[in-house]
């Protein structure tokens, strides 16, 4: 269970989050859609305390935290329960792909090294990177880096995974595979919050879709609701340009 209440965040004079409320049930896959700059990344970052919110609180199963004034301990507790897939990957530059995945397991979760290695290997295998275990991030292509980032989060078995455009660098073939992996994990009860620009993705995996714009949640509902019967004019406008006639182009 994940719940945001009244999350606010400004950068100087720029108000990026203007009070965001969001409730996600355990095992749900919630997709956040929204134009560039609407505050999607910032929202995820606030939950993980990578950015200190100006106001608001979050609840993670039994753990309720004030996003502005959380103590060090609370912050650490939240981070232990969550995993983050970064928009720009942020792989550890000084570690190989395998070590990138192992790090959180060994140092963060205190899993014995051998078990962690096995786990990391399986995670990388799932995203098709068995042949790049010992490559450093600089030796990986964009899509390969992104997949290491995904594997790193998955291997942690967290309660909640925050994905920030996890498939932007992947070819559609891989998107399909990653999608499969995510579906399976969701079925195992992991809650997922996914920022994405891929409508297809949203339609296929989301149990709920949230549309954000200008720092607020404009509308949220099932994919059928949002794509089929959007209530708000802004949503309709976004979708109109996003899912044009041509999308039904048949091959």
């Amino acid at each position, binding site marked *: 269970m994940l719940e945001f209440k009244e999350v606010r965040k400004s950068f100087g004079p720029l108000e990026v989050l203007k009070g965001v409320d969001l409730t996600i049930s355990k095992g749900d896959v919630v997709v956040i859609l929204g134009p560039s700059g609407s505050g999607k990344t910032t929202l995820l970052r606030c939950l*993980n*305390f*990578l950015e200190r919110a100006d106001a608001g609180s979050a609840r993670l199963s039994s753990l309720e935290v004030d996003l502005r004034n959380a103590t*060090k301990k609370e912050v*650490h507790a939240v*981070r*232990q329960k*969550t*995993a*983050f897939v*970064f928009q*720009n990957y*942020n*792989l*550890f*530059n*000084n*570690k*190989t792909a395998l070590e990138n995945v192992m*790090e*959180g397991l060994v*140092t*963060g*979760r205190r899993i014995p090294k051998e078990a962690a290695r096995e786990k990391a290997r399986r995670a990388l295998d799932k995203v098709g990177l068995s042949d790049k275990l010992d490559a*450093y*991030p*600089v030796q990986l292509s964009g899509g390969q880096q992104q997949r290491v980032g995904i594997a*790193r*989060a998955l291997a*942690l078995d967290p309660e909640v995974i925050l994905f920030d455009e996890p498939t932007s660098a992947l070819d559609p073939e891989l998107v399909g595979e990653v999608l499969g992996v995510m579906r399976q994990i969701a079925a195992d009860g992991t809650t997922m919050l996914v920022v994405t620009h891929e409508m297809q993705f949203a339609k296929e995996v989301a149990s709920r879709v949230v549309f954000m714009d200008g720092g607020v949640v404009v509308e949220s509902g099932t994919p059928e609701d949002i794509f089929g019967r959007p209530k708000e004019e802004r949503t309709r406008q976004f979708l109109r340009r996003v899912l044009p006639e041509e999308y039904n182009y048949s091959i």
Partner: protein
Amino acid sequence: MIEKYFDASYIWSSFPQLLPFLGVTFLVAGLSVLFGTAAGLLLAAAKLGQSGTARRLADGYTTIMRCTPSIVLLFLVYYGVPFLAGQFGLNLHDVHTAVFVVITFTLQFAAILSEVARSAILAINRGQYEAAVSVGLSPLQAYRRIVLPQAAVVALPNFANGLIALLQEGALAYTIGLIDIVGKANLIVAANFNAHALEVFIALALLYWVLSILIGQFFGFLEKRLGKGRRTVKAA
């Protein structure tokens, strides 16, 4: 003209006299680097941390320590510490001079290292720290496992600058009667009534050069090892 004053045999005969004093040089530099690095990292942490007071204190400390000539600092410690201790009824007048020298250089090296460390840590993209805490590492673990190893590569050349300077600063210890290799060289020169000082100092320079090459090699090796996975502007 030159051959009138220059006699290379003085170079060779200086080595066996100088070498035994290398130990003092190493001891002073080694201990100061050890303690200074530890203190310097704490200072750097204070400078990068949240607390404004801690930051200002660390900044002030650095300014004063960096700006005080070593010889003055040495006198301050050598005379000031026993004096202060005396106020509390402690007699430190018989403590070995090396202790004061190590304290002095520790204080100074800490200041220099704190800036080396601060600049190196700032050079590491914040995303690295963020990723580390996001996989459940505590901030301390994130620094130890992810940020510092990368910052170390950046810091190494500057650290070597400081370390090598410190090896040479040991010469100052001579001022209060602690004899390291520079001090010994001075004594040899004085014993010759300043004749053939050039040869003695050349011997000293050669010794230092060898040390410097060894240190350079070692740091080069460390840089290579720790620098794995780095993609810098090097190589066109």
